[in-house]
């Protein structure tokens, strides 16, 4: 007694196209920034400047790639900046301690690298365990560990600055300033991390599970996704990436103090959101994050390129551009 026939429905094409357009958003904003940069200063696209900007965006960039996974799965990590400072401080202490016995050698640097990665994984695991096993809001957990890591590095440095032994620094220096084929190492590492991140997000079960958990934890759990494990992994992954970022950071400045990495968390999260990842979880894209990081870096660079206004207003211009960049991308997608 019901309607017996049903017209064949076609899959709706507009939905598809819409995604593509909104995806173009951040890229468009980036392109616009680059054009403005070129107009402001002919040196903007010079090899030197590009290398500088890309290399320095590598720290936040590497961290933001990890943050993309955490946010996609519905989490958050406010502790990354402090964590980086803490890892940098500990790495320096370990390397300095090893110099007397091992001499200033590659071995010392290697031990430093190991320390960085290990600590990153550990710190990430602490956050992850408190969130998953402890069942505490990620915001609170990482706000807490943010304070803890920051305090620890201040305490380790006795309120001052921890400096890497000068001879070790010379060995370690090429990690930031060197490169191959004229491409600086941080850029290479960032690119590798970003590409792997993008592949993991799109092509592996892990990435898919992150999105599923962020979208609907209950569904993920019902579908045999090991929710806690995946969630824990995102934090550990982020921790390791903070470790890698710190490994690139230490040779740049050769020191760590309580002001190291301040506000990196905000920058990393902002990059992720600008890139189109949803803050509440469920959808994330690594390449968007990369674009977001570049947008933020180029804004800073642009402000140095042309002394347009009082430096006091830099923050305001930055704010306006961030809002505009995202608005641009929203408008485009709304238009479709």
């Amino acid at each position, binding site marked *: 007694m019901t309607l*017996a*026939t*049903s*017209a064949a429905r076609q*899959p709706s094409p507009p*939905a*598809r196209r819409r995604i593509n357009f909104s995806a173009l958003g951040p890229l468009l904003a980036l392109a616009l920034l680059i054009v403005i940069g070129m107009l402001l200063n002919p040196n903007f696209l010079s090899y030197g400047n590009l290398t500088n900007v890309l290399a320095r965006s590598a720290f936040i960039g590497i961290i933001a790639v990890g943050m993309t996974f955490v946010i996609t799965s519905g989490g958050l990590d406010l502790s990354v900046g402090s964590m980086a400072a803490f890892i940098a401080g500990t790495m320096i202490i370990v390397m300095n301690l090893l110099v007397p016995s091992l001499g200033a050698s590659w071995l010392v640097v290697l031990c430093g690298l190991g320390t960085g990665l290990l600590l990153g994984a550990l710190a990430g695991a602490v956050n992850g365990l408190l969130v998953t096993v402890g069942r505490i809001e990620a915001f609170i957990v990482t706000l807490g560990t943010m304070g803890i890591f920051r305090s620890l590095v201040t305490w380790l440095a006795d309120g001052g600055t921890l400096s890497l032994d000068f001879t070790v620094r010379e060995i370690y220096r090429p990690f930031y300033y060197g490169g191959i084929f004229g491409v600086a190492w941080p850029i290479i590492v960032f690119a590798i991390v970003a590409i792997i991140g993008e592949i993991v997000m799109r*092509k592996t079960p892990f990435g*898919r599970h992150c999105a599923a958990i962020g979208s609907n934890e209950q569904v*993920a759990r019902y579908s045999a996704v090991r929710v806690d494990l995946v969630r824990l992994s995102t934090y550990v992954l982020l921790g390791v990436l903070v470790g890698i970022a710190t490994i690139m950071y230490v040779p740049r400045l050769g020191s760590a103090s309580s002001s190291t990495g301040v506000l990196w968390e905000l920058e990393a999260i902002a990059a992720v959101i600008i890139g189109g990842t949803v803050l509440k979880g469920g959808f994330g894209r690594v390449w968007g994050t990369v674009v977001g990081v570049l947008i933020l870096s180029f804004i800073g660079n642009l402000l140095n390129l042309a002394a347009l206004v009082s430096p006091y207003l830099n923050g305001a211009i930055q704010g306006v551009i961030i809002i505009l960049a995202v608005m641009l991308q929203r408008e485009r997608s709304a238009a479709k």
Partner: protein
Amino acid sequence: MGVAVSEGRLTSPVLSAEKVSKSFGPVQVLFHIDFELRPGEVHALIGENGAGKSTLMKTLSGYERPTGGRILLDGQEVQFVSGADAEDRGVVLIHQEFNLADQLSVEANIFLGREPRRGPFLDSSRMREEARALLAELETNVDPQTRVMHLPVSDKQMVEIAKALSRKARVLIMDEPTAVLTANESRTLFRQIERLKREGVAILYTSHKLEEVKEIADVVTVLRDGHHVVTAPTSELSVDDMARHMVGRELVDLYPEKAPQPAAETVLEVSGFSVLRYAEDVSFTLKRGEILGFAGLVGSGRTELMEGLVGLRPAHGEVKVHGEVVHIRSPKDAERRGVAYLTEDRKGRGLILNQEMRPNLTLFGLDRFCNIFIDRRREEEALDQATQRFDIRAPHRRIHVGHLSGGNQQKLLLAKTMVVEPDIVIIDEPTRGIDIGTKQQIYNFVEDLARQGKSCILVSSEMAEIIGLCHRVVVMRSGRVMGELSAGDINENNIVRHAMGLSHNGGGRHDARH
């Protein structure tokens, strides 16, 4: 009536329940249920809304732990740790509420948690192929790449089914799979069920469409208030028997007397109305005391048209309420004009699942319950009235709406819409997932409204509902009105012809079933 195990069920049960009980806190929902499911058999579980069907199914498939009794798989006692654990052992459940991650694609949902891999990577091509094949078997045109949130409910249901089929079940448990499907889609599903049955899969199935049960089930088990009432071969039970067992009393005619012919006064006049991308140039009128049906195939744009009318979608065209031209830009505007819309999507758009019944009931038209502050007492009274008037059955009144049985959610949604006492009420698929007894109550309720001089637009894909209730019927196809039927012309044949777009070129081939 005791348990009537019939002859002819020779194979030993693959999954069975022994004196299974289930309580949520102090509220007992299932009482010592005995139950057997055999391979190659389609077993229907029926009962009123809130009888405990979904709970029993979840208990059998590992999503809930029984609080008493045992569950046996192949004669061995099992304790499923989780739904996933049960799935690993071949017991798969299709949930009543959708169990899909909205932001993920169809394909990602189908394989979620069991993705085929090639090395460390997802085997995308295989997934795409298999997803396509599964969906093709179900004869849906869903694109595996679309995100689930863009899908209509019936397609979501098909994706759920595809997901379950992909799990290669030995026992397939389906909780009201056909509630949101069209007859055609249901038919495809039944073909799949036949196939699985031949392959020796045991199928447990529930539906409020008793004709359907009669047609495809081999055995029927009836639950009432969490108690086992009867188990019998379908051949031994008529549809009326089933209904009687469910409700515990004799059911009189499903459809009430039609309300008296509406007055001449036109309360709503819509002309040249279009909703961006979904409906074009729609015109119709609604009279005082009239029940106006909207029929059409799924996707014909009825829902969007109504949403456009109450300001939920961008739309343009002329709308007159009580003869006065109005511009309705939001549901609030509509409410002020005495127009209320009841959505077809109770979970996504109708109810806040993580809140209690009281705030849900009063959310629409909250200003009726406050002077400055919300008057809690008046709210509680309204809830009392609503539970009575709509027979909403909840274990206790502070339960989260998400824990109500599907039918009771639907009743609450209806109650919520009626709180504003609209002059013109638009109800979209009001009886989805509603048991036969309650359906009758709802029909009576709608007739009563008309008798009181209210007007009602009924959007429904249940042809019988439209025919049984409406004074006049508008038939839509692809966003356009194909025709209007009144009084004596309202019959299935006419509606189908219009819905298929055959009326203009003088018939042609229509409905092969009749």
